[in-house]
């Protein structure tokens, strides 16, 4: 799969990202690195342990990373989750977390298929 296709698949737009970072090679490099990024794992661990403070930080960080890389769908879901647990408020709406998981899975799978 080409980088452009990947972005299309996961609900992002490579062109927009390139407006900010005009270097496709650089973007590709980081997208590939994302597969090993530990932030998502930190999030799941925190949610499982019901550590809402850590969950907030992790969700917020995840949102930032997604934003930087132009993973628009993930950014949205992560953002929603962040706001839900801001101030270490316990998560009431599980679906928000599930949404994040779904988007993350999609991205990881796509990255695996990348040339």
């Amino acid at each position: 799969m080409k980088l452009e296709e990947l972005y299309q698949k996961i609900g992002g737009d490579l062109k927009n990202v390139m407006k900010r970072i005009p270097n496709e090679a650089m973007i590709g490099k980081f997208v590939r690195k994302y597969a090993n990024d530990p932030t998502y794992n930190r999030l799941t661990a925190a949610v499982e342990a019901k550590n809402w403070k850590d969950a907030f930080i992790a969700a917020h960080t995840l949102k930032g990373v997604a934003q930087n890389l132009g993973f628009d769908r993930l950014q949205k879901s992560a953002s929603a989750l962040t706001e839900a647990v801001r101030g270490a408020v316990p998560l009431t709406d599980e679906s928000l977390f599930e949404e994040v998981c779904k988007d993350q899975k999609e991205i990881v799978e796509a990255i695996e298929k990348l040339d």
Partner: protein
Amino acid sequence: MSLKEKILIADDSEMNQMLLEEILSDKYEYVMAKDGTEAVDILEKNDDIDLVMLDINMPKMDGFGVLEVMNLRHWISEVPVIIISSENDVDFIRRSYDLGASDYISRPFDLTVVRRRVENTLMLYARQKRLVRLVEEQVYEREKTNNTMINILSHVIEYRNNESGQHILHVRMMTGTLLHRLIEITDKYPLTETDISMIVSISALHDIGKISVPKAILNKPGKLDPEEWEIMKNHAAIGDAMLYDLGTQQAETLMNLAHEICRWHHERWDGRGYPDGLKGDEIPISAQVVAMADVYDALTSERCYKKSFDHATAIKMITNGECGAFNPLLIQCLLDVQDQLFENMHTDPRRFDYRQEAKRLSDEMLEQKELMPNNRAHSLLTFEQKKAEFFAEQCGGIQFEFDHWTNTVHLKDWNAPVDQREKSMYLTEWNDVSLLSEKDWLAMREKLKATTPERPEVKMIVQIPVNGEYRWQRLTAKSLWTTKYKNYAGVLGRFEDIQDEMVRRGEDVLEKCSEYSVSHLLKDLSRVFEVVRLVDPKTNENLELDKDGKVITTPIHCYEIWGRNEPCENCISSRSLEGKEWVTKLEMRDRQMYFVLSKHINVNGRTCTLEIASHEDEAECTRCGGDNDAPTRSSLMNFYRDTLTGTYTRLYLESFQSNLESADAVAIVDVDLFKQINDTYGHPVGDEALKTIANTIRSGIRGSDTLIRYGGDEFLLIFSKIGEEVFYERLKQLRRAVQETKLPDYPEVKLDVSLGGVYRVHPLSEAIRQADLRMYENKAKHANGNHVACR
């Protein structure tokens, strides 16, 4: 050592760290932290971090926490912080700025933006750091010098006392420590770093009075008897007295401090001290602190009359009042800093590092934005200004200075009265200054534009108005350039009045005419004047120059041009022989008045007269610009013309009286109700009225008649040849014409004149007198509403 700037990136996402590193490329060195605590740790251990890029949301300690620590430890003023966070909430941003962040870059990262912001911030801080370092160096050097001298002094003093020489240094250190703690715990004694520094320095002098105490007493091992004790106590008062011998030339603040400390460092808070028994805060804080430092050091040192006490005992003895009585605030300070004091005791005070002090002092100076004025530079500058002023005045004329950056001109006119000499104006249009004609202005501009730093001078000859008349000036100007980059900065210039020089030159030219230049002169003049010729004044023959430039006589006589068969009565050619000046007359030809100039010149050894004639007309101004020295027709005319109405002036009447004597008729014209017009409508309108009336009259007379402005609102009409009936009829017509004329802007103003005329009365002066009387008769009749013929 690496020359790259070091950037600390604090972000809990490794991804972000790498992304930033990638974006900023290998232009910089990077240190990573994954939470706030790590970041602070790194800052503590590395003092060469040039920039911190800080995320807000991090575990353990967040971005705000880091900023708070940086504030506490005063790193924030050294190291810029750029917040990188995806929080776009306005409160977050504000809080970051409040905590001293330099900038805020939001996500998602834009490559160009991130790069530029980082670059700019680093550049800004680099400069600041350099400057701060400069100031610190200066202060450091100063402090070091000060303290070296004081070290020497203290050794000299204590040499006598058989003391270790450390006493003064210990007292200094302790005074400084106590004072710094004092300002931390209370606002009661407002002291700046500079004040503290001064007190600390001067504290070294507290015992100078001991010089007056005999060595025997100073070094007596046992207790002093009452007499000896009195002498000893006196060292305080004597020290103070000694300072008075220095006179009043010294720095006042320092001297005051010296007096305070010397005299009162043995006073007690309870008033039982010496020499003056001051109580409480009557004692200046400087003396209070030095007193405590003195006591402490005395307690903890070995003296000839006692053993030393240890630190803890000394503290106890002071705090429970066993040794002197002190300000409770100072007691508190002592307790607060006791550990520090203990440490200091065991450090060699000579190794005291002034860098800390220097830094504190320079920080304070920078904050107050005060730099000690460099007195020497200032007084040099004032002196130079005085010199410049003197030479400018000697130079005289009109001087100007144009500043390119502010687009302003400063004029100094030394001809004007003192309070009107200076003028500054902002130029919006190039010729706002309205000194030069358009042509001259453009020429000057062109020449200035062509100047370079190597060839900055411009010289021109121009005419400018001075006190109502145009005079020739030599304009010398020079363009100014900045020293380093040779940027255009402005123009300096001067107008030198050369009118007299020009006139003299013109005369000299004519005096020393060689044949060659004469023919050229004649040719030039012929371009401007209708009649230009050489005349032999004795024989009245016209002279010509042949092609070799020699003078030859022609059979034509000069007076023939005027239609005469014999020399003119007022022949100016012969008159011009008498004086060297230009001589003038008027002649009639073809019903036109001619204005004739003649001057005696020497051509090829032969005396001739140069005659120039031109006829008058309603000449427009053709002024010469540039380098043409010859007078033009119109400037001659203007000499005799009144600037407002364009009629001739009384000067004309006086100059040509002989011509006008033969006139047939003379009339005086007076404008009615002129004063009322001025009062009701203002002087500009009055002027308009005069102008209009003059024009009306002028259009009603012949070319051979002369209209002269005789007074403020009076005109003189001189008719050359005219019949009597026609004359009086003409006067009536003129009056009617004036009455019918209206001012375009003020149609309601009624213009009217009173005329008085006389026919064939001689001499001219008598005619004018009688005409004047007649005019007044008629004016009176007007007032009475009678419409009478002017008779």
